[in-house]
Each structure stands twice: as structure tokens, then as C-alpha cells.
């Protein structure tokens, strides 16, 4: 079981390291968001707590990077299906569950690497210089949870898809709404009640708030609550993803 998980993880890492253009590409988007939106809106936004909008955005942008790259990694299974490689893993004498776990952990790891790179760059750009190791650890724990849960979500979706045609739909109707309605770009406390309500059903909100608590020391949702909700979501979605993946036809 562990051998198979490690094997799948190793493959994800090897492919990730090899795809340098993908790494650079995935760093560019969050930085553009941060620089253009962050500095563009910095002067007109007055925020409780940190005061600086750019700083406020950093946790949101980091969470976005982790979430996007996790879902991408999970959805990669469709490529494996199309290129036939999935058959090679499915016919091996290992359980589907361990294959799914390996994919999830591998995807989460690569997402975490991208999130960390974004975090370092973003802190530099935003001039976020005061932080504690303890806070960093908290942020990391939340990034790991975002990584695991959204990779599993990607796998769950990919298990139900035949090809990449639906990808645009997922991008526009799942990934962007999740991101925009998560408190990544604006504080939820001042938002209209409808947005606020939706955001509270969005698992990413708890991720963003958790990372924000770690990096900035303030958050609108109690970090313990964020942690519990996100762990619950991760467990649920990993089980769901595993269940869907078991039914995938080779």
C-alpha cells in the first residue's frame, strides 16, 4: 500500500519538476493579481486590522495558487485516461484506494511547492516583513489541507469526466467562483449578506481565513473553526474522490 502511494507520489514530483514552464506560468497569474489588483486598489480600500490591501491579499493569493494547482493536478487523471497511462496503474496488483491516495498526496505536494513559491514572492512584493515561525506553520497546515482537499476534488471530477471538454466549465463555474467568493479579495464582514452567506458554504473561505490568521495574525473566522471545517471537508472529499475513482473504467 505505502509502496504504491510512494510510487504515484514520485511520478507526480518527477513530472512537476520537469514542467518548468508550468511552474513559471502558475506563478505569473497570482503575482499579476497581487501587483495589479493589490496596488491598484490599495489606495481606495480601507481595511480593518492590517490597513494595507496588498498585505490583505497575500493569503488569498497564496490560497488561490494552492487551490488552482491542486484542482489541475487532480484533473490530470483525465490526461492519464486519454493517453492510456491510467490502464497501466489500474491493472497493477494494487488497490484503487492507494492509487487515489498517491495521486492526492502527489498533487497536494506539487500544489504546496507552488503555494510556497508564491508566498515567498508575494511577501516580498507586498513588503510583508513581520511574521513568526509559528504563524508560518499555521499557514502551512492550512495550505496542506487546501492542497489535499482540492486535489481530491479534482480527482472526483476527473473520475466522472470522459475528456477535457468540460474543463472550461469547471474553470468558470467552479474554480473562479470558489476563489472570488472566499474572502480572498475582500473582507467578508463588510460584504452584502448574500455573498457572505455563500462564502460561509465555501470550503476555501476557511482555508483563506486560516492562512490569513497564520500570516497576518488576524482573521474574521475563528482559526480553530476554520481548521475543523477544513479537516472535515478534506476527509469528506477524499472519501468521495476515492469512491468515484473506484468506479472508473479502464
Amino acid at each position, binding site marked *: 500500500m505505502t509502496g504504491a502511494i510512494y510510487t504515484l507520489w514520485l511520478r507526480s514530483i*518527477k*513530472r512537476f519538476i520537469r514542467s518548468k514552464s508550468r511552474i513559471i506560468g502558475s506563478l505569473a497569474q497570482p503575482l499579476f493579481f497581487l501587483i495589479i489588483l493589490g496596488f491598484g486598489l490599495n489606495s481606495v480600500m480601507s481595511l480593518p486590522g492590517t490597513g494595507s490591501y496588498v498585505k490583505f491579499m497575500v493569503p488569498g493569493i497564496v490560497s488561490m495558487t494552492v487551490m488552482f494547482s491542486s484542482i489541475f493536478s487532480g484533473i490530470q487523471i483525465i490526461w492519464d485516461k486519454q493517453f*492510456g*497511462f491510467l*490502464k*497501466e496503474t489500474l491493472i*497493477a*496488483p494494487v488497490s484503487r484506494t492507494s492509487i487515489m491516495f498517491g495521486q492526492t498526496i502527489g498533487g497536494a505536494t506539487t500544489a504546496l511547492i507552488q503555494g510556497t513559491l508564491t508566498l515567498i514572492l508575494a511577501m516580498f512584493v507586498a513588503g510583508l516583513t513581520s511574521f513568526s515561525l509559528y504563524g508560518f506553520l499555521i499557514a502551512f497546515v492550512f495550505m496542506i489541507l487546501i492542497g489535499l482537499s482540492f486535489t481530491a476534488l479534482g480527482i472526483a471530477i476527473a473520475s466522472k469526466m470522459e475528456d477535457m471538454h468540460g474543463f472550461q466549465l469547471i474553470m468558470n463555474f467552479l474554480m473562479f467562483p470558489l476563489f472570488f467568493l472566499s474572502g480572498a479579495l475582500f473582507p467578508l464582514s463588510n460584504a452584502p449578506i448574500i455573498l457572505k452567506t455563500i462564502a460561509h458554504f465555501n470550503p476555501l473561505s476557511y482555508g483563506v481565513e486560516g492562512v490569513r490568521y497564520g500570516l497576518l495574525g488576524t482573521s474574521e473566522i475563528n482559526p480553530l473553526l476554520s481548521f475543523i471545517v477544513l479537516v472535515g471537508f478534506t476527509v469528506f472529499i477524499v472519501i468521495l474522490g476515492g469512491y468515484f475513482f473506484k468506479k472508473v473504467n479502464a
Partner: protein
Amino acid sequence: MGNIIEIKNLTKRFDKVLAVDNISFSVKQGEIFGFLGPNGAGKTTTLSMLATLLSPTKGKASVNGFDIEKQRDNVRHSIGMVFQDPTLDEELTAYENMDFHGRLYNVPKNERKKKIIELLQLVELDKKKNDLVKTFSGGMRRRLEIARGLLHEPKVLFLDEPTLGLDPQTRNKIWAHIKVLNKEKNVTIILTTHYMDEADKLCDRIAIIDNGKIVAINTSANLKNKIGGDIITIGTNEREKLLNILKKYKFCKSFKEHNSSLTINVEHAETRVAEIVKLADRNKITIHTLAINKPTLEDVFLYYTGKTIREEEATPEDNFKFRVRRMRR
């Protein structure tokens, strides 16, 4: 030697299509066994069931003594599989693809490296081991997949259309590799094909499968013998006269008249040619040309199914089945 594969009343139904219809046979240890039939005949479905990728609707089968439904992991350890479509990770190197496989099948670390190199040498890819698979040609990919399928030392290697879409030179090379592997590794090989020459050149025994049923199973030579011997084609201007004479002789099994020639089915044609020529000569019939043809598997297929393999491929019903099968994969 004993049977490595036993199949009893194996049946697979997809909704309304009966893909495999109650087949029973066995394969001996060390054989190269071929499934010959047109697209959609049920070859791949049978293979998928034996490889535990599909569950049979009815019937039983065992591979290397393990039940394909109750002992899946044991079956999976006992077999290597090369699918019709490539199943390599193009973003990894040849070596990494092999390594991935070895790890999944629990090949111990110290053996793994040695075996990978040895197998890559066997299929002449050792010099390319650190190249990304996406730079490989179709033939190289197929060879890599065959090598990979053998890494965990399976007892049986399944090859689903091993040379589909490859050029003649590459096909010859793959055939040579298959024969060497069969001998050197003593691995039983089961392949599916719709190429007559492939089945003829490679297989010790052939099962002809059509519409999910096995219509004949035997060695290539015996299958050809069953259809009534060889074919003698005689070119002459007086074919009716010759026909009337030869009709009296028992060794001439059947006749067919063409524009300027006559074909006769004769068993052991070589031993009868002299007699036929003598008869013609005695009756002052001039023979312009004479040819003896051994029946091909094409003739065999025609004999057993009443249609050529190409006609068969074109029927809409089979195309439909083919599509259904593709959708399932």
C-alpha cells in the same frame, strides 16, 4: 506441460451486445497462442476478462491456477499486459516508465535496476533509456511496453494487437522479439490479431473467433489442412475437357472454373501434379501454366465463417460493436 489458462463457458454481455458468447478452451504452458478475428469479434473483451479488467457475465476462467474473479491480485501478478493503445507516461523516460512499473509490482530495489537494463537491452532500447517517451516512435513505444510487461516476470504475457498501425519492418522486428521472449523467458504468450500473416508466423495454436464465438481452434497447419488440401490452378484453353476427365478421379475434391483457368482442391498436391499433367498430355490438352498454392489463413477464415476478414470488418453491426467496445475502454 500443463495448462496455464483454463476457460469455461466464459460469457460477456454489454447491455444488448453479446461480446463473448460462451467460450471454452485452454492454453498450454509455454505456447504462443493467437486469437484471430475481425474487429469487434470479442478478442479484446476476452483478454480484458482474463486480465481482470472486466468481470465476466457468466462462466469461469483461471490464469496460472488463480481464479480471475476471486484471486485478482494473484492473477495480476501472474500476467503482463500490452494494450492495443499505448499506456506509457510520455513525460517520463523509458527507464522511469519501467521503474514505475517495477515499484507498483513490488520488484525488489536491487533486482529492479538490473532487470530493467536487461529487458531494455533485449528490446534494443538500452541506449534510449534516459530519453523521454514522447520522443519515441510507435515501434519503440510498443517494444518498451513489451519489455515493461515482462519486468515482474509474469507467467503469461497478453499482447493485444501488438503490431497494429506499425510499418512492415517494425512488425517483423516485434515478431522476432516476441519469439525470443517466448523462448528465453519461457513465458506463455497470448496475442490477439486481425492480421492473418501475424497469426500464421507467430502462433503455435490459433483460435478463430467470430461474433463472440470460437469457430475453430488448432495449429495453423491443421486449420489449413481441414479445408481440404491445396489448390492447383491450371491455365488451359480446354478447361472443360480437362474438367470432365479429372472429375472421374477421387483425389480431386472440388473444382472451380474461371475465364482461362481451372482451380482444383487436392490433398497433398505435390504428389498428384505428375498424374494430372500425364492425364492432360494423354488427352492432348495443352497446359500453359500450373501453380500449386497452399491455403492461407485467409482461406481458413473464409471457410469457417463464410466471409473474408475484410468483408467482416465492414458490416455495420460489427462497427457498432467496435464502437461499443471502444466506449467501454
